[in-house]
């Protein structure tokens, strides 16, 4: 199972849980899976069909460029982080 | 930039007649390093730009040890410091000439232009005042002389009247056992406008380490560069030592009436007057004593 790290500001929806196991194979699947367990969480993470503005997803220490389509490994760690630019 | 007419004149009379005819809408172009920026940024309007760099008197450097220096108003800074005799006789002038802008600016900018721009922060004006230099002003009626210390009247303003312009500057001959030093304080090491500038001129008594006379001039601490009279007068008869310099610095602060602006807060400027007065006096005395 992959582990999703729940940002402090999202724990109101997860009942205080800071890490949650998930079985989805993509970010999209994980969010759908969470929405079933924690109704309302998808609205917090998504703008329509995209990750919310200013949000990025990091898988195993690397910010993914693939948004909701990003693939998640069996033992992956997943973080929702602020999007990064560069100079 | 609004367009203007351009006239390159080759005699003083030609310049005077153009300036008389066009009045405030005519402006002099010497090095152009201030005037072109002001025209471009709309801080100044001109219908006619009179280029005076073809008038021979304005480009002259005439130095005679017994008669002093006559410096044409349009002589670019680099010609001053590249002239070994002038540089040796008036090191305080060189101090300013080699720090006005970068090299590219010094290739064009003139001390005369710096004076006529009449910025309170002008680097060359304190040494001119400290050396007791005089302005030679041509005009429709006659040529007149005005001490530099009385030339500027307000930021960007001076005693020039309609039809008049600065032809040159006259420096008294260097006195034995005298020395002059100009320093400014800027946050960077070059390419900055003085937060404070101080020129100190001293003349020592023969064979004694005592100050016979001194003139301390300040920039960027009042609406015009000023002579710190009280400090200057006080130094006469005082030993040329650190204690006197520090005390003179304290007195010089009283001549400072600075404002706070982007280049520095008022109280800091006053503080710097003390520091720079002390430092320039010390250097000026060293120069006075140098063989």
């Amino acid at each position, binding site marked *: 199972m992959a582990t999703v790290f729940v940002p402090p500001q999202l724990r109101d929806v997860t009942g205080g849980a800071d890490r949650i196991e998930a079985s989805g194979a993509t970010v999209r699947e994980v969010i759908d899976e969470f929405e079933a367990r924690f109704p309302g969480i998808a609205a917090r993470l998504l703008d329509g069909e995209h990750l919310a503005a200013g949000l990025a997803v990091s898988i195993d220490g690397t910010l993914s460029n693939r948004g909701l389509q990003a693939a998640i490994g069996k033992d992956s760690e997943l973080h929702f982080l602020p999007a990064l630019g560069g100079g | 930039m609004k*367009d203007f007419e*351009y006239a390159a004149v080759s005699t003083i009379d030609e310049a005077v007649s153009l300036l008389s005819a066009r009045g405030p809408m005519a402006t002099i172009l010497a090095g*152009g*390093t201030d005037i072109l920026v002001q025209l471009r940024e709309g801080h100044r309007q001109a219908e006619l730009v009179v280029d005076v760099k073809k008038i021979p008197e304005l480009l002259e450097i005439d130095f005679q040890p017994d008669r002093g220096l006559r410096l044409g108003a349009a002589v670019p800074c680099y010609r001053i410091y590249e002239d070994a005799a002038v540089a040796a006789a008036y090191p305080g002038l060189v101090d300013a000439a080699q720090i006005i802008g970068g090299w590219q600016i010094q290739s064009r900018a003139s001390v005369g232009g710096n004076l006529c721009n009449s910025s309170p922060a002008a680097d060359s004006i304190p040494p001119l005042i400290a050396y007791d230099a005089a302005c030679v002003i041509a005009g429709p009626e006659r040529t007149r002389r005005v001490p530099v210390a009385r030339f500027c009247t307000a930021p960007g303003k001076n005693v020039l009247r309609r039809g008049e312009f600065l032809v040159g500057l006259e420096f008294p001959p260097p006195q034995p056992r005298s020395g002059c030093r100009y320093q400014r304080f800027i946050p960077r090491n070059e390419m900055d406008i003085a937060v404070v500038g101080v020129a100190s001129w001293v003349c020592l008594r023969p064979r004694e380490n005592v100050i016979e006379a001194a003139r301390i001039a300040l920039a960027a601490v009042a609406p015009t560069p000023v002579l710190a009279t009280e400090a200057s007068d006080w130094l006469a008869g005082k030993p040329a030592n650190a204690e006197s310099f520090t005390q003179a610095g304290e007195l010089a602060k009283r001549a400072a009436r600075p404002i706070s602006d982007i280049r520095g807060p008022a109280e800091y400027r006053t503080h710097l007057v003390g520091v720079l007065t002390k430092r320039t006096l010390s250097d000026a005395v060293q120069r006075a004593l140098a063989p």
Partner: protein
Amino acid sequence: MNFIPRLRERLYVAKKLHVTTTVNGEPAEFLCEARHSLMDALRDTLGLTGTKEGCNNGNCGACTVLLNGVPVDSCLVLAVEAEGAEITTVEGIANLGHLHPLQQCFLEGAALQCGICTPGFLVAAKALLDRCARPSEQEIRFQLSGNLCRCTGYDKIVRAVQEAANRLQEVKR
């Protein structure tokens, strides 16, 4: 559709001044308005776009050219003032296709990154080496302080000028 704009344009044309000068050793002539700078004339009229604009008020040195052998900010010189003058721009530094030692040393020493300030530095550094065969690090820094570079931190520029000075000395020997 273009007829009316063209007519307007013709009405607008300002009075132009004729200037005869020498650029990079070749006679040159151009027309300019009195307000135009030497930088404008070099770049827009003569097509010598190697001279760069960084600030257009004499604070960055990117537009440095030699005017009668001395370095000036061409943004602070009126184009009409070039009458009868000799001007050297970055395009005139290489000789018959051979890079000047300064240019060579800038390349070998990686003394440029984005390259926009490079022409100004090369012209100013050439003026320096023309006057002073062996400038110290401090002299180089002082004389080049009218040229801003935002990429390199100046280290490699100063070293390139030092190295070019060495090579020019070797050539003389």
